[in-house]
């Protein structure tokens, strides 16, 4: 269509109800096409009730059912469906960013020891439990109320919730919709990082593009920040698996034909759809609590390391976003306000200025959109725009997007020491698993600068800050 938009016309394959629309640049589109994502964009276009287009962000890569980077909105009042494949296994995987009162110059001489200290304190890796244990009654409150419950326990404060998408609590969550197996799988995992691409990073502000927005967020050049990337852990994985199974008969019951059984779905208004949404919201609330409890541990650990009593209070949350979620939102489509089920799978909400869901201090700016890059390059803070509201149901990208499989990445790292390579670039990296750093090496990901450039060129977001990693902890 133009330098940054690629259309898959309706009719390119049977069953498409709308066009496919991929946001990508000439630099990125080669990997997109070879990665199999466009076929999945076309498959998603077959979902009943889909409006606008089946979209994908520039970090698109192959996923289960939906591509990663996929955005699809279905009309709740016109037979629109909800699909667990449109959310993914890691429900409410997302990113939290906190600012500190420290400067990069203060931290750099200590970064190796600080990273080791955090690595010892933050539960990370497979099969690792956290220090927080919750009774089944408390677990139900976490699932139903999210961060609100942690406030009542003294593990969060109102400012944490205010600086979190949906205040860290999705209404309509039902603990009873989450199977006992799922609850058991997540019982000792709230406050743990997990493995794979999840991380805690100590970063610093390398570039400020929007001084006014940065000032409102309390950010300046050289300031040290902390970014946390994690999700709903085993609980969310189990919820997704449970509902992929229980919804198996729904397409037959409601006369829905699907090109991929991983896209299994049910009308939002059906009992099956409502049940899934109630469970997904509960898992999302669990994920927000997980990131909150990780933040509690980071604050405590950094406070102990620097030995300053007030450091804890000065590690302040900037924002927290979900990038694997389905939400009921109202958007204007062809001049009419419509209630939509917006699936964002590997895509970040990017509400523009003035949206009433944003906290008062951020409302004039638009929503912070947190984009983690690979551990050797950079991450970004962007702002959502009115263009995103108009074109993508208020959505933008979520990260760099993989270009290598894990095994490919391990092979690519053979004979190399990724930790040594990163250290040469001034980055201390520690991973629990023996292949963690190899799997997550910078070469395994797309160029984050190119992805962000594409999103901003299209107008879906605007740049505020660029952040450079100093210390990285992986599972």
């Amino acid at each position, binding site marked *: 269509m133009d330098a940054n938009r690629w259309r898959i016309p309706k009719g390119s394959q049977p069953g498409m109800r709308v066009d496919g629309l991929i946001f990508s640049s000439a630099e990125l589109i080669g990997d997109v096409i070879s*990665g*199999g994502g466009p076929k999945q964009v076309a498959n998603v276009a077959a979902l009943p009730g889909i409006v606008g287009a089946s979209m994908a962000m520039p970090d698109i890569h192959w996923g*289960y059912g939906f591509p990663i980077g996929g955005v699809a909105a279905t009309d709740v009042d016109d037979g629109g469906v909800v699909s667990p494949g449109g959310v993914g296994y890691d429900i409410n995987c997302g990113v939290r960013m906190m600012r500190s009162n420290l400067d990069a110059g203060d931290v750099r001489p200590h970064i190796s020891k600080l990273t080791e200290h955090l690595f010892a304190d933050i539960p990370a890796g497979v099969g690792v439990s956290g220090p927080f244990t919750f009774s089944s009654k408390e677990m139900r409150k976490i699932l139903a109320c999210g961060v609100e419950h942690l406030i009542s326990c003294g593990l969060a404060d109102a400012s944490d919730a205010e600086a979190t998408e949906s205040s860290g609590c999705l209404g309509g969550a039902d603990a009873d919709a989450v199977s006992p197996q799922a609850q058991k799988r997540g019982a000792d995992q709230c406050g743990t990082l997990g493995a794979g691409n999840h991380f805690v990073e100590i970063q610093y502000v390398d570039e400020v593009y929007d001084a006014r927005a940065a000032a409102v967020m309390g950010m300046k050049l050289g300031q040290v920040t902390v970014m946390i990337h994690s999700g709903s852990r085993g609980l969310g*994985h189990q919820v997704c*698996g449970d509902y992929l199974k229980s919804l*198996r008969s729904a397409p037959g019951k409601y006369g829905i034909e699907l090109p991929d059984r991983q896209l299994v779905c049910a009308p939002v208004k059906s009992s099956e759809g409502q049940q899934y949404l109630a469970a997904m919201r509960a898992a999302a609330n669990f994920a927000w609590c997980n990131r909150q409890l990780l933040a509690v541990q980071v604050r405590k650990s950094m406070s102990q390391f620097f030995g300053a009593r007030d450091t804890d209070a000065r590690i302040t949350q900037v924002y927290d976003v979900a990038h694997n979620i389905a939400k009921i939102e109202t958007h204007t489509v062809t001049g009419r306000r419509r209630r939509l089920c917006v699936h964002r799978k590997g895509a970040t909400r990017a509400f523009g200025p003035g949206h009433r869901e944003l906290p008062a201090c951020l409302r004039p700016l638009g929503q912070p959109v947190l984009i983690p890059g690979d551990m050797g390059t950079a991450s970004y803070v962007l702002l959502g725009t009115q263009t995103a509201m108009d074109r993508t149901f208020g959505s933008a990208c979520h990260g760099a997007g993989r270009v290598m*499989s894990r095994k490919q990445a391990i092979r690519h790292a053979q004979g190399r020491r990724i930790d040594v390579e990163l250290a040469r670039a001034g980055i201390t990296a520690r991973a629990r698993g023996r292949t963690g750093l190899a799997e997550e090496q910078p070469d395994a990901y797309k160029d984050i600068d190119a992805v962000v450039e594409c999103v901003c060129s299209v107008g879906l977001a605007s740049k505020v800050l660029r952040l450079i990693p100093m210390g990285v902890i992986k599972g």
Partner: protein
Amino acid sequence: MSGRCETFDHTADVGLSAHADSPEELLEVLAECMCDQVCPRKNVAPDSEREISVEAPDFEALTVDFLDAVLGAIQIDRFAVASVKVTGVTQTSASAELLGTDLDPRRHEILTEIKAVTYHELEALERGGQWTARVILDL
């Protein structure tokens, strides 16, 4: 046992490709290969036994559900699996005995966490007397 299972690359994840002379053997080699991705069986003593049984609308879905049940034993019930013995299988049901022991991170190496067994490009069928399957695991 003449059945065999090997892994193959898939973007961000890993796939299992298996061949066997019977559906019992197919499910066994798939499950044991999956267990090796999470917690290698060579370090697991067959001290105790667990039973699993699943039902599904067709053999492909059954394969996913069967592997999901084995995964649940490891990742939810913390039972390290040494071997899998299928005791009964039809197109829509399967039961098995898992031999193994309580998972102890000090004794058992845990290599990865599998989020789920997926339906993507799923294949599980009998062709010319040979049973084959391809399953992708979300890591």
